[in-house]
């Protein structure tokens, strides 16, 4: 679910073997090319196990588990970091049946609901995370820009803390035992083709509008699409859910029936299952409006097709990841894992992920690794003073462009709900099968 698959720059399984020679060499090069800021930031890392042969395995999904991160971390740190990419089902399977094969699990918020009770993680001590106080308050305090963050769906704050050091129960509120350090997160909304539509789109219910019969797409990912459908239904004013993120069976039936009615009318051109499919639907002109993930909109534009990630009055559906430490880690390996988490927040990673349109748990340190206008574009919502390139150097937007949805604060002040895993998930799957046989 929610496979925010970045266009495959990565292969199914990526492991980076690294020798000390190459590492030292790269370190030298990095210094030579003038990444002085970086080296300075690196200064605080202990090097007592410099000669140890430690490998930290970071496992996660394709959009955040990128080989470049492991390469850079291995270059900066005195041990090796390797990446394993898997899909959601594979990740859950590994977490529960071969948790020893993972050191750092980079997983989505809702996955914690079903993995924490199985006792596969250990508590993270916030005191050992140098920038803990700079991590986003969305996760840490459940507050953002002076407001309570929506608790509909699996909100970050709800799964950030364990009750105690036993790390088998999620706490209601803050504690000294963190389940994770906040990782990559973002907000999703509708993607539209403004020229084909020719009028402003401001509400979620437009996705259900007959005007787009046969030219609209949703997702074939039940727990996420049900939320978008709920946003649409609330937007029409027909029904108000007590908690969109945890519906009653009746609410699930009503919501999916609505999708079935639309399907029977031929409303859905397609219900997509992967990131690439959502991009292709727009690029090939099959649809003009669809549920979309932010980087997918960028990918459509990169192919020369005008497409807007449309902010809507009712707000966004948020999603997020976090990095957890697996229970089996101890001693030097545990120390190395903490060093990796601290490295993750030291700035390079923040900049790398921000330039792809996502946000990271700690934003501030990324400033050292971005040009001021890049920061202003990605975080402040200002018009780009220069061309905006992705971290691989490919041009994404020309100078003058303003990011859809505006600044980070604008976007995240309007999160209406979060990707979820409902108590009635099994019932949802049953109902979803009806949608597909209808």
């Amino acid at each position: 679910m929610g496979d925010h698959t970045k266009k495959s720059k990565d292969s199914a399984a990526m492991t980076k073997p690294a020798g000390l020679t190459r590492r030292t060499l790269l370190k030298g090069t990095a210094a030579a090319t003038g990444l002085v800021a970086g080296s300075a930031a690196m200064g605080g890392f202990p090097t007592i196990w410099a000669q140890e042969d430690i490998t930290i395995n970071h496992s996660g999904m394709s959009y955040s588990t990128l080989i470049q991160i492991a390469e850079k971390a291995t270059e900066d740190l005195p041990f090796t970091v390797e990446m394993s990419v898997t899909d959601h089902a594979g990740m859950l399977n590994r977490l529960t049946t071969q948790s020893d094969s993972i050191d750092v699990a980079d997983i989505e918020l809702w996955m914690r609901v079903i993995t924490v009770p199985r006792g596969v993680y250990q508590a993270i001590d916030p005191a050992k995370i140098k920038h803990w106080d700079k991590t986003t308050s969305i996760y840490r305090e459940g507050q953002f820009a002076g407001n309570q963050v929506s608790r509909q769906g699996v909100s970050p704050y709800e799964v950030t803390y364990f009750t105690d050091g036993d790390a088998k129960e999620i706490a209601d509120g803050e504690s000294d035992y963190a389940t994770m350090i906040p990782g990559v997160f973002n907000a999703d909304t509708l993607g539209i083709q403004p020229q084909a539509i020719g009028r402003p789109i401001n509400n979620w219910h437009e996705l259900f509008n007959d005007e787009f019969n046969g030219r609209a797409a949703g997702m074939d990912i039940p727990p996420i699409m049900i939320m978008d459908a709920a946003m649409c239904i609330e937007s029409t004013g027909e029904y108000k859910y007590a908690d969109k993120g945890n519906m009653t069976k009746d609410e699930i039936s009503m919501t999916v029936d609505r999708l079935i009615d639309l399907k029977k009318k031929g409303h859905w051109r397609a219900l997509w299952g992967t990131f690439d499919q959502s991009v292709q639907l727009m690029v090939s002109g099959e649809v003009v409006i669809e549920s979309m993930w932010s980087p997918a909109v960028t990918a459509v534009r990169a192919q020369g097709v005008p497409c807007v990630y449309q902010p809507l009055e009712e707000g966004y559906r948020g999603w997020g990841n976090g990095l957890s430490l697996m229970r089996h880690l101890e001693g030097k390996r545990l120390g190395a894992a903490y060093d990796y988490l601290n490295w993750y927040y030291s700035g390079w990673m923040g900049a790398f992920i921000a330039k792809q349109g996502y946000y990271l748990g700690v934003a501030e340190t990324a400033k050292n690794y971005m040009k001021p206008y890049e920061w202003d574009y990605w975080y402040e919502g200002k018009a780009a003073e220069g061309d905006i390139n992705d971290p691989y150097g490919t041009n994404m937007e020309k100078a003058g462009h303003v990011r859809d949805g505006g600044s980070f604060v604008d976007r995240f002040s309007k999160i209406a709900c979060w990707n979820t895993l409902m108590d009635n998930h099994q019932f949802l799957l049953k109902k979803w099968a009806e949608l597909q046989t209808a």
Partner: protein
Amino acid sequence: MRIFQVGPFSLALLLFFLVPLGVLLVVSFFESDMIFGMRATFSLESYVELFTTWNTLWLYLSTLKFAAIVWAITLLVGFTIAYFLVFHVRSLLIAIGLFLLCTVPFWTSNIIRMISWIPLLGKQGLINQAVIGLGISDEPVAWLLFSDFAVVVSYVHLFTLFMIVPIFNSMARIDKTLIEAARDAGAGRLRTVWEVIVPLSRSGIALGSIFVIVLVMGDFFVVKVMSGGQRASVVSNIFEDINVLLYPPAAASSVFLLIVVVLIVMGVLRVVDIRKQLAG
């Protein structure tokens, strides 16, 4: 010593087939709990759920419908191609060359071959450009893509070779003098095909049918992508369960699918005794 002949294969069969199958069967009787994982108890919960849900029936009907349509088309196309290669191409060398040509699409992956239909069948695809360009219609034809039609087209494209190969193999072993005898006895071409060639290609037809039906019954990807996520198959439903660690219902569903597929295969084998055919 016979044991040395069958030993290694039996061992492989045991380790890689029977043991996993046993695990599957055992897990299908466990109790599932999304939050805490499955409980190793004996429970019929998953089966009860499976057989009391109307959707199970609709899913099987939908999958069987695809299997039947695709079977009929691949059989017709596969038989025709094999017939042409064996009885119309006089040079064996050219026949083998043409046969190899049939395998060319298989040099790329299934996914590429399937996805390559999308730019052809889409609203702005080649076919619709032609339709609009020739003035046949003003509106693009929408049912070409993300429809049952698209699913069938992909299946036929992907699986016809599995029909061609066994039928080609059976036909190649038919004694050509039988055809001459049929002709001498006054049979026309169609009658010869129906009364001589079809019966003698039975084992190939049976094998090909098994391949195609099993492949369609076990698919979840083609049906998802080509129907634009608006059709499910039995397997795609199993996949949704696995996505949230609901292994017992997934296992129960798999066990039932296995039984259905085995019954179909047994049905085919009842009509055609492949062992006897191959031995003969």
